[in-house]
Each structure stands twice: as structure tokens, then as C-alpha cells.
């Protein structure tokens, strides 16, 4: 006999063991106890079913009833997502607040998407048109920047039998499809999708375009491609969150999904409060109009963190399928891994390193694999992408720990944060010797729009920085004064690049975002400046004379100036100072 109802046998934190649920399948959503707390089946052993509960289990007793919904954990997808703030199970936190006040309560259930709101639906196909899964049949202007494209669900195909323009809720029928077997299927604007299963696409294609972020060290030195993946590991306070916020604010993606996974409540409050006041430098529209937030903060039950990552990625895939470039920020993937560890420990699985389950690497790989650039389903060759950026919080700042070392295997870009840079308030504290990007070569085309020699200057700058750090090693032993002036010049230039280029203040009204053209021009100027000075030094001009140049400060301050004209002015100034000094020392140029 099969049964959808059982009884609780044991409760140990988020782990609930029940018996009598003979129909349960792994992944089924379960309602636990009289409060109907939400959980998911994670193990079946004989008659015993183990459930990971997403809410606090305090007060629940063995003997209480338990029900299976016989459905997996799904995301509701449709108009109404934009600007929302959800928990890991897609409950709107704004709705919960309205319903029960500012403190969370257990067992509260709200519909993820508003069922009453009407959206103005405009068809893009007509009666008789042939459609297959993934085709766009119409759209809703969800916000002033996002046209929410309504898709035929992946499993449906046939002829449009009926489709209507007008104001509809997400559960109203907006179209009917006559399937090839003659059956009719009603289409609503809302779809559901199981979060643990990747949404299908036609094929993967290589990523060829940079995701411009307006952050100099990222775009110019360690870029990320649209559809790429990046990890940003760093000890506490090194700038993971601020950097991800910067990327969420300023990157060129069309849709942003920000997953706060096991992090601070005040940070989420900060994003949702400040985003509405920020404007996209490209569209001039509010950034909130293209963003979705998932806020599963650190003091919410640890198990729900596990789901929040999948929830966010599923939403991302849904917009990718509409043909958008989506960027997903996950802060922090370490907290998600800890959730895996927690439930694994309660299930008494054999731990691998540091108590993490042996399947940690597999799960991390699966997560990053859900990113990428694809040709979507549907009859048109539509391209969409998901770029994933994951913060990693290594205990003690030690990058050899499992989550960091595993993540590095699956990402194309590493922004390695450095505690020492953070101590001296060099932000973003991305260490230029430890970081890497596998996408640089792809991006030359993009940059040559601004500067045909971009790659040369970029590599030169990076090489100077590397050389400078070697010289610094020596300087640490013998003192800067004892170095030859040629080396001291390298130190000076690297200091200029660090302060004038790499350091970027997220809270400065101009500096927060730096357009690509400006980046390319400033970068070039540093190298040109070096090449102007080098002959003087070689000819015996003391470095201290160079340090007196007022153009140095001007070059270093270019980042804070609006407009590109300052760059040429600074260059002219430097040239005239060089000429003067050359005359003084009777050097012929």
C-alpha cells in the first residue's frame, strides 16, 4: 500500500526522520508537523525517510504527522520577479513582512509571484502559427528596461489555437496550443521548474564577449566573459561583498540575480535600500528594474541556504532562455557548502576533508556548469548567457581549504583577494600576482575598438607590476634608497598604476564606475609616461627629480575626473615637464 502521509520518528536539528511515507521520492517536498514546515527528502532507507527541513524545527515532536506533496522543489517563473526580494524557497520577504511583521515566523507560506496583479500581454505570434518549446509567443513590459518574454514551456509544441492581447494575471490563460496529438494545452504566463534540474537549451557556444563591469582591475586585467564563471575568495573584510555589489550595480548584464547566501542581514538591507536610488550608467534607468534578490541570511536555518543557490540559478536560466545576458552573484558559496556539510553530518555520511561530504566537488561543478552561453530552445537561433560569480570565504583566509581549491578548478577567472592590500585600504584588494583570467585573449577584439595596442599596454603594465614586486622584495632587505634609480622608477610607476588605476573607490561618485574607453586611455598613459621617463633616468637624472613632477599627481587623479579630455591634458603636462628636465640636464631627445 502506498501512502502520502507518515509520522515523525526523530528530529535532530534540520534533519527529520519519518516513517510510513512509502511513496516518497528523493527531492519531494514534504510538509512537516502541524505547522507544515517545508522540507525535502534527502535519503530513503527501508521504511525510514530522511528529510532536510528548511525551517527551524523547535517544538516539533516525534509522532506528529508528515505529508508529501509528491512534487519537487520548484521555482515559479513569470512576470513579477523583477525587483523582488525572496528567501531561498522563493517566498517574497516583502510579503512575509506585510503578513507577519518584521520578525520571521515559521510555517508562513505566500505565493512567490503575485497572483492578482494584471500584466499587459502583447502576443508575438498569431493563431495558426507553429510553435515549439522555447518559442516566444508574446511579452509583457515588466519594468521600463525588461521586456518579459513569455515562452512556450520546453515540453509543449504544436499550433497556436488561440492567443489574446490584454491585461491578464500570471495564472490566466493567454494562449492555447493544439498539440500534434490533437490535445489542447493552455498556456499561462507563469511556469514552474524544478530548481535542481537545469533548464534545457539547444547547444552551448563559446563565450566571446567581455562582461564589462566598469571596474578597472577586472575589465583591464582579469576580465570575465559573458557566460563565464569567476570565483572571488578572500578572508573576512577583504571586499568580496563590496566587489560583488559593484558588479551587480555596474556590469553590463541585462539581468542581475543577487544571491545573499548565509551572509549578513544588514548587507541585504543595504542593497535593497540603495539599489532603487541608483541609475544604470548605460540606460539611465533604475538598477532595481533589472535585479532580483535572494536573501537567505546567516541566521535563517542553514538548510535553506542550500536551496537558495539553485533557486537563483533557475531564475537565471529562465531569463537566459528569453535571450538575455544574466549575471548571478552568489555571496557566499562557502556558506552554501557548509549547509551541505551540515546535512551530510546529520545523515552521518562519511566525511572527506574538513568534514565536507565527498560529493562537494561534484556539487560545486554542477553549480558553475549551469552558467554559460547557449543557443536556447525554440525555432529561432536565440542566444542567452549566464555569468556566475561566486564569493568564497576560506576559514582563516587559507586558500588551500576545500571550497576554495575546488572552486578554482571550475572557473575561468579568479579574483584573489589579499588581506594585506585590504589592510592598507587598497580596494578592490584583488592581488594582481595571484589572480588570473582565461578569457583575456578572447577580448582583444573588444578592446581594440578603443586602442589597437590594448593587449600590448595591458601586458606591459602587468609585467611592470610583477617586476615591481620583485624589486620590493629586495627593497625590503636593503632599503629603497640603495636601489639603482632604474629600479626605483619601476617602483614609482607601479605605485602610480596601483593608486591611479587598480585602486577604485566603490563609494566615490565618479570613480565607482569607469567606462572601458577611459580605462584603455589611462592604462596607455601610464606606460607612455614610463617610456618618456626611462631615457632620462638612463641618462643620469636622479629619480627624486622625477618625483617632483606635478603631472604625477594629475595622472593618478585622472580616475576621479569625469570626461576624457583630462587624460590628454595630463599627458601634455607630463611631456612638458619631461622636456624641461631634459633641457636642464642637456639631454637630447
Amino acid at each position, binding site marked *: 500500500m502506498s501512502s502520502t502521509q507518515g509520522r515523525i*520518528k*526523530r*528530529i535532530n*536539528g534540520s534533519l527529520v526522520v519519518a516513517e510510513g511515507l512509502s511513496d516518497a521520492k528523493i527531492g519531494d517536498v514534504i510538509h512537516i508537523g502541524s505547522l507544515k514546515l517545508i522540507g525535502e527528502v534527502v535519503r530513503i532507507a527501508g521504511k525510514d525517510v530522511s528529510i532536510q527541513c528548511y525551517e*527551524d*524545527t*523547535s*517544538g*516539533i*515532536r*516525534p*509522532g506528529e504527522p508528515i505529508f508529501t506533496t509528491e512534487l519537487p522543489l520548484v521555482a515559479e517563473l513569470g512576470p513579477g520577479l523583477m525587483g523582488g*526580494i525572496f528567501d531561498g524557497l522563493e517566498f517574497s*520577504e*516583502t510579503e*512575509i*513582512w506585510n503578513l507577519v*511583521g*518584521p*520578525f520571521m515566523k515559521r510555517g508562513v507560506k505566500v505565493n512567490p509571484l503575485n497572483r492578482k496583479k494584471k500584466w499587459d500581454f502583447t502576443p508575438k505570434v498569431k493563431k495558426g502559427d507553429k510553435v515549439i518549446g522555447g518559442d516566444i509567443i508574446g511579452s509583457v513590459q515588466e519594468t521600463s528596461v525588461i521586456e518579459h518574454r513569455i515562452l512556450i514551456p520546453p515540453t509543449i509544441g504544436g499550433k497556436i489555437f488561440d492567443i489574446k492581447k490584454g491585461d491578464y494575471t500570471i495564472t490566466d490563460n493567454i494562449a492555447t496550443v493544439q498539440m500534434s496529438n490533437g490535445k489542447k494545452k493552455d498556456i499561462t504566463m507563469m511556469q514552474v521548474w524544478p530548481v535542481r534540474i537545469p533548464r534545457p537549451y539547444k547547444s552551448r557556444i563559446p563565450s566571446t564577449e567581455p562582461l564589462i563591469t566598469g571596474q578597472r582591475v577586472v575589465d583591464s586585467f582579469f576580465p570575465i566573459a559573458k557566460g563565464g564563471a569567476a570565483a572571488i575568495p578572500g578572508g*573576512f*573584510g577583504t571586499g568580496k561583498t563590496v566587489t560583488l555589489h559593484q558588479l551587480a550595480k555596474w556590469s553590463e548584464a541585462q539581468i542581475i540575480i543577487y544571491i545573499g547566501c*548565509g551572509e549578513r*542581514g*544588514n548587507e*541585504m*538591507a*543595504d542593497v*535593497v*535600500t540603495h539599489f532603487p536610488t541608483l541609475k544604470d550608467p548605460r540606460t539611465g534607468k533604475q538598477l532595481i528594474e533589472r535585479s532580483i534578490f535572494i536573501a537567505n*541570511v*546567516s*541566521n535563517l536555518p*542553514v538548510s535553506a541556504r542550500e536551496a537558495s543557490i539553485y533557486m537563483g540559478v533557475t531564475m537565471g536560466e529562465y531569463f537566459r532562455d528569453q535571450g538575455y545576458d544574466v549575471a548571478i552573484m552568489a555571496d557566499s558559496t562557502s556558506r552554501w557548502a*557548509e549547509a551541505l*556539510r551540515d546535512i551530510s*553530518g546529520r545523515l552521518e555520511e562519511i566525511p572527506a576533508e*574538513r*568534514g565536507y561530504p565527498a560529493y562537494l566537488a561534484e556539487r560545486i561543478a554542477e553549480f558553475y556548469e549551469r552558467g554559460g552561453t547557449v543557443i536556447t530552445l525554440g525555432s529561432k537561433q536565440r542566444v542567452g548567457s549566464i555569468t556566475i560569480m561566486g564569493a568564497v*570565504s576560506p*576559514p*582563516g*583566509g*587559507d586558500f588551500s581549504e576545500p571550497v576554495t581549491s575546488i572552486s578554482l578548478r571550475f572557473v575561468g577567472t579568479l579574483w584573489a583577494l589579499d*588581506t594585506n592590500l*585590504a*589592510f*592598507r*585600504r587598497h580596494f578592490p584588494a584583488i592581488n594582481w600576482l595571484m589572480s588570473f583570467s582565461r578569457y583575456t585573449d578572447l577580448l582583444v577584439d573588444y578592446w581594440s575598438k578603443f586602442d589597437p595596442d590594448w593587449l600590448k599596454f595591458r601586458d606591459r603594465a602587468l609585467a611592470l607590476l610583477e617586476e615591481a614586486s620583485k624589486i620590493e622584495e629586495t*627593497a*625590503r632587505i*636593503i*632599503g*629603497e*634608497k640603495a636601489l639603482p634609480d632604474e629600479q626605483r622608477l619601476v617602483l614609482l610607476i607601479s605605485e602610480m598604476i596601483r593608486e591611479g588605476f587598480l585602486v577604485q*573607490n566603490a*563609494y566615490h561618485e565618479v570613480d565607482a564606475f569607469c567606462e572601458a574607453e577611459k580605462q584603455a586611455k589611462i592604462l596607455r598613459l601610464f606606460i607612455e609616461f614610463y617610456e618618456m621617463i626611462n631615457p632620462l633616468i638612463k641618462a643620469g637624472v636622479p629619480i627624486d627629480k622625477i618625483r617632483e613632477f606635478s603631472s*604625477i599627481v594629475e595622472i593618478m*587623479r585622472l580616475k*576621479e575626473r569625469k570626461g576624457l579630455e583630462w587624460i590628454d591634458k595630463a599627458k601634455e603636462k607630463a611631456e612638458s615637464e619631461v622636456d624641461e628636465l631634459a633641457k636642464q640636464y642637456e639631454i637630447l631627445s
Partner: protein
Amino acid sequence: MSEKAGLIYKTTREIRGPLLVVEDVKGAAYNELVEIKLSDGTEMIGNVLDTFSDRAIVQVFGRTEGLELGVSVRFTGELIQIPLSDDLIGRVFDGSLRPLDHMPDPLGAERREIFGSVINPAAREPPSEFIQTGVSTIDGMNSLVRGQKLPFFSEAGLSHNIAAAQVARQATVLGKEEDFAVVFCAMGIKHEEYEFFRREFEKTGALERCVMVLNLADDPIIERIVAPRIAQTIAEYLAFDLEMHILTILTDMTNYGEALRSISVAKEEVPTRKGYPGYLYTDLATIYERAGKVKGRKGSVTLMPILTMPGGDITHPIPDLSGYITEGQLIFDRDLSFRGIYPPVNVLPSLSRLMKDGIGSGKTREDHSEVSNQLYMSYAEGVKARGLVRIIGEVGLSERERKYLHFAEEFENRFVNQGVYENRNLERTLGIAWDLLSLLPEDDLIRVREEYTKKYHPNYVKS
């Protein structure tokens, strides 16, 4: 204890550290409050950590000496709750909220669970009101705002208590007279340390505005699990029900962590680092994250946990995971302390993440953030030069390096260093900062925009 509901069991089969395995219990609730009575009449509380159809594992928040299989265990059917009212202010309790001040048991119409409920992130108000503490290293470079959690990372024997008391004494929000109280929670600190706080609070009259929850060094270790939660439950009530501004001091969180570890060991859980359980981060978050502000409510909970870093090691799990949760940290440094600097705050690894929201024009002063950034950068440069001196001597330094070295010394002596009773207002703090910056070449002040240099640099300010 008088007549109370709930079933009493005398079926304890095993005692393992602070854990009791009680048999034949039918359906105890997870986390349920349990009362334990020893044969000598001693009473303790505990809660259910793991519950089965026919048995329950209970952790005892009391002394484990004297526990025997014959103890009577009463399952109360409730979660651990405490009574709440404004009468708690001015009172002193032990770690389980039993009075230590010879006054009656606390009463209150409102009862709440000490494990608390989570502030909905959507309902949080981002903290933004600058608190002037009168301490330059805090106000100038690591500003505290209402609703922030800013811990002291210190070492045994340093002056963190004196500094905490100074902050509690001097903290004000400029231009505001509001209802204010301190919730003080001791976990495993020495009597002498507690006496210090009590005297300090008494001197300034703060004692009447203070709730004390005390678990001292010789009190039961496992009680440290409940003490900070009781304190935070009181703080939340005073802040969000009675609309008061609360400063919670939790000291010493390292002792808390050790209590948590000993339970984990008794439960035979797989340890992660240094024997601490994998859930240490989440567990600490359930205490720390109860600080903050709530939209539409007037009050606030500002949290100042104090912890001593074992062996001065900041990568030790307690400071490390605290740092991952709190909104910054102030680092107390043995070296500075040796050199007689008070408060011995090493600003370089210190941080206040919420500073940016509390400072600037209209809040403190327009140049505040940039001056702070400049001090960080220049001091880091000076510390680097000092490192050089150790290797090559001062003669090996360049002119520039020597300037920075001098700057670093002056910075420590004049900016970091101050009196225990010296209450510097922000103008004064920024004034000292500019005096110090004027020791450096003006062109080096790259983190400050020219406009502010022209306005505040001593070279331009007409005296």
C-alpha cells in the same frame, strides 16, 4: 519549583559530559525546555537536542558534577522562554536569569523564546546614525553606527575591558537625547573583570540603565550557551518593543565558543578546525545577527562583543568566524600595549564596514572618509618603513621613508593614544588627523581630494 505541568522521568540511561540520554520519553519536542532536579535539590535547566519516538537527548545548562542516572527530568512542553518588562533594567542575573541582586524573580506579561526569531531582511533598516564614542581610532577610522555589530578582538591581559567601558560611558548620538540602556552579558570572565565593569557603570550612573546577565569563570560552562541568547532577547525587547537604544556587550565570546565545542565533542560530531563544530559560523550568527534596526520601529541594538584571540591568532575559528559575521572589528595589539599606547588599537587590520553610511557631509564631516583612507594608507607606509629600520637601520631609509616613519610614530602617540577619560569630539579627532597628515608631502595625500586639502590642511587653514 512549584507544581508545574509536564511529565517527570527518572529514566536517564547515560550521562556523557553535559548530555543526558533519557529513555522511554514519548515524543519530546525538539529544543524543548527541560528541568533537571538532583537528589540534593539542585535545579538546572536544559533543552532537547535530539528526539526520537522513545528517547531524547538533553543538554544540561548547569554544573555536570553531581549528575547521576537517578536525576528527575521534567519535560515542560515549552521552549525556553523568559519574561520581559522594563523592570529588568537595573537588575543583575545569573546566566539562566536567576536574580543575583536579592530581588524577586523577574516578572513580565510578555514571554519570549530565547532562541529568538530572525529579523526579516526586507524589514531591516540599514544602520546609518553615527555614534560618537570619543575614541579617535573608532570615530575617526572605524566609526560605529547604531545597529552595528562591532567586536573587539583582543588578547588576554590587554585593555579591552577599559576601552569597552569607555565606549559605553561616552557613546552618544550627536544632537539626540534618547532612551538608552546597556545589556551586559558575561561569559566565563573573572570576578575581578566583572567587578571592574560594575564599578565603572556605577561611577557614571550607568548601572541603573543596565541589565546584567552573568556567567562568571566559576559558573557552569554550558550555561554560556543560553546566557548571550537571554541577553539578546532582552535587548531586542527593549529596542523593538520599548523603542530604546541598546548597547549589548558580550564578553568573552571565546569562552562561549569553547562551551559550544564541549557539547559538540560530547555529541561525537565530526569536528572541522581545532575541534570546533561545522555549525560554529551559523551558531554565532544566531547571536550576532540579532543586532540591528527595524523599519518602522524606533529602537536599535548595537552589539559590541569582546573576544580574546587564543595566542593572538586572528585565524583561530572564533575570531575568524566572528569576523565573517560582524560588521568589522577592532584589533587590540600587544605590541602597542607594551609601548604604552592606550587604547592599543591596531587600525590596519581593524575595520568598520558600516562607517560609510554613518559619515560624510550632513552626518559628520565631508572629508571624514577620505581623511580616514589617507591615514590608513600613510600609516601602512610608515609601518612598512619601520619594518625596514629593523633590517637596515634608520640610516638606510630614504628621505621619504623617514618622513613616513616619523608619521607612524606621531600617529600612534597623538591619534591612537588617548586618555581613559578623554572624550574627543569628532572635530578634535579630525583636527589631529590633519595635523598629522601635514607632516607628509602634500602631493602624497592622494586619497583626499584637493578641495578638502585646501579647506582643512593646516597649511591653508588660517589660525
